[in-house]
């Protein structure tokens, strides 16, 4: 399943865009341009991109509090994302949701979620819809290692298996839930080990290797499309930054050598090396990608800045459908 040049370029571009979007979000939060909490996805880009590269628009994903990467990988428009972070009317939620609630139903992005584990049941509902539609669409549900301690994790896997729902549960095991290491949360390191009791495949992938994630998710997605039911895929990865910030980034509490060892396995650098080695992309092409990302982000910020704040008179709009 060798990827062609265009595919590799697209993956690389998306990973860089995710990283730079969140690096920029941190700066914008410090600058007071955006509000509330920011949970950067930096370091985990290979998971979202590896998984979503298997997708059609009609496939669907649910996301978490750390959702920017999933949105971008699923094809959301960074201009409307940025406008949402700025709290403006042209944001995806017209400023009502903010970072933790970006959704774009038109591209099958069913929403970030501020409640740990909260997206798993919703994802099962989307998969049920796909099953009833019978068009072979698949739902992917992203969640963290921390979420795997919530009861909804178990209920979702159980019913998805009994009903053979077309869903892939993707656990992004970034080794921490806020300040708690995985060992505080779980008796063993592999969340994927739960799969067996549900009679579904459980696979651990290197979550910093986009090609490995792509392949593993590809198998799971194909299985779901064939109507054979759910899979559990765990990507081992790491966040480079703090769990969350409000006005200022909080101090780092994790061991510095641990951070260094994970940074040495930078998923973007690894893809670049691969593409370079395989002769798929030249250094010039890669820097063109970076230039383009930068320009797109500038454009997104300009778009957001130009969008007005919502009018308080519209406070009650969107409460109920007709």
């Amino acid at each position, binding site marked *: 399943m060798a990827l062609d040049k265009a595919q590799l370029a697209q993956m690389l571009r998306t990973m860089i865009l995710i990283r730079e979007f969140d690096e920029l979000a941190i700066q914008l939060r410090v600058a007071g341009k955006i509000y509330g909490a920011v949970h950067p996805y930096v370091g985990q880009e290979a998971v979202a991109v590896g998984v979503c590269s298997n997708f059609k628009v009609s496939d669907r994903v649910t996301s978490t509090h750390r959702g920017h990467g999933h949105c971008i990988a699923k094809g959301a428009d960074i201009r409307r994302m940025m406008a949402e972070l700025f709290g403006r009317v042209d*944001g995806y939620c017209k400023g009502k949701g903010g970072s933790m609630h970006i*959704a774009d139903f038109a591209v099958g992005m069913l929403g970030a979620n501020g409640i740990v584990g909260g997206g798993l*049941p*919703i994802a099962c509902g*989307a998969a*049920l819809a796909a099953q009833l539609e019978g068009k072979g669409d698949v739902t992917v549900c992203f969640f963290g290692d921390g979420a795997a301690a919530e009861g909804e994790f178990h*209920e979702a896997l159980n*019913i998805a298996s009994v009903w053979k729902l077309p869903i892939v549960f993707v656990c992004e095991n970034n080794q921490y839930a806020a300040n708690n290491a995985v060992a505080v949360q779980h008796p063993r390191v592999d969340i994927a080990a739960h799969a067996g009791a549900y009679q579904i495949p459980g696979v651990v992938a290197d979550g910093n290797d986009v090609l490995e994630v792509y392949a593993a998710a590809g198998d799971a997605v194909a299985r779901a499309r064939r109507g054979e039911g759910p899979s559990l895929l765990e990507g081992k990865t790491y966040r480079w930054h703090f769990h969350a910030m409000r006005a200022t980034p909080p101090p780092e509490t994790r061991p510095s050598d641990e951070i260094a060892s994970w940074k040495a396995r930078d998923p973007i650098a690894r893809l670049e090396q691969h593409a370079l080695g395989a002769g798929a992309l030249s250094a010039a092409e890669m820097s063109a990608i970076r230039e383009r990302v930068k320009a797109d982000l500038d454009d997104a910020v300009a778009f957001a800045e130009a969008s007005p704040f919502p009018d308080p008179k519209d406070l009650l709009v969107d409460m109920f459908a007709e």
Partner: protein
Amino acid sequence: MREISFQKALDEAVAEEMRRDPRIIVMATDFTGDPVKEFGPARVRFTPISEAVLTGMGLGAAGCGFRPIVNWRMVTFSFVAMDQIVNQASKIRYMFGGQADFPVTYRCTTGGGIGLAAQHSQSPYSMWMHLAGLKIILPSTPADAKGLLKSAIRDNNPVVSFECSRLATVTGPVPDGDHLVPIGVAEVKRAGTDVTIVGLAYYVQEALAVAEELVREGISIEVVDPRTLVPMDADTVRASVRKTGRVVIVDEAPATCSAASEISALLVEDPDTFRVLKAPVRRVCAVPVPVPYSPPLERAALPNRDDIKTAVYAVLKDSLRPV
């Protein structure tokens, strides 16, 4: 008009709507009758005991074009799903800027009075009413049950249908055909001039019975049934109280932060109603205890006709201006 039971009326509502709209699916650990026979196992789903995931699935499938009905069975079982109700169902449409609709119906039974004790006897609708973003129905007659549930299923928002257990076997006339009762419209179930009784669910019947008894004492009672808890038809309730000047609100939930508290507050914050109110606003509610098992205790915990009468006498006695 044919007379059918409250339960049958609810079952008819679901079956008729399922015939109308193939996007409707139902999920529960059990069903009355055999809906699988008519609608097949893809649309009628027997589920594991996993209320949280089912509640979220209803929402997720609704956001993807289906119209799920999730039956929690007893309201107390729904508390394991409360995050999906509070943080997801009641917030999702607004939070996402209205970009999708979530036409999901949640159903459950409520109430005590049948010896099942605290974990199977509760009427906590006010906890849902407090959430902005859910519509809530609470019928008191077979006709309202059918008509409101059909409206709930057709509504494009999450709607919670609270179905009082003690009413299940109560029968009453239900119009033939496509009988709909609009969400958000209260009904004056009996006209009167001296005291308004606002009753909920089972206590609408009890209020009507009390009204009948009090005729003999020359007291004229108006009985108002909100039928929908959200949106609450405050206009109709206020109009009645403006007419009678006195009000007793009856329900089987404990009074604290109840629907009865809310109705009281809606009455006294309206200047026109406040001005003509002649007596304190009385709530006749359950004693604030988890519903006990033993029949004499359960009877003492839940409101009864004597309690309603006592409250009526009290509002008459305490009136600033006599009747």
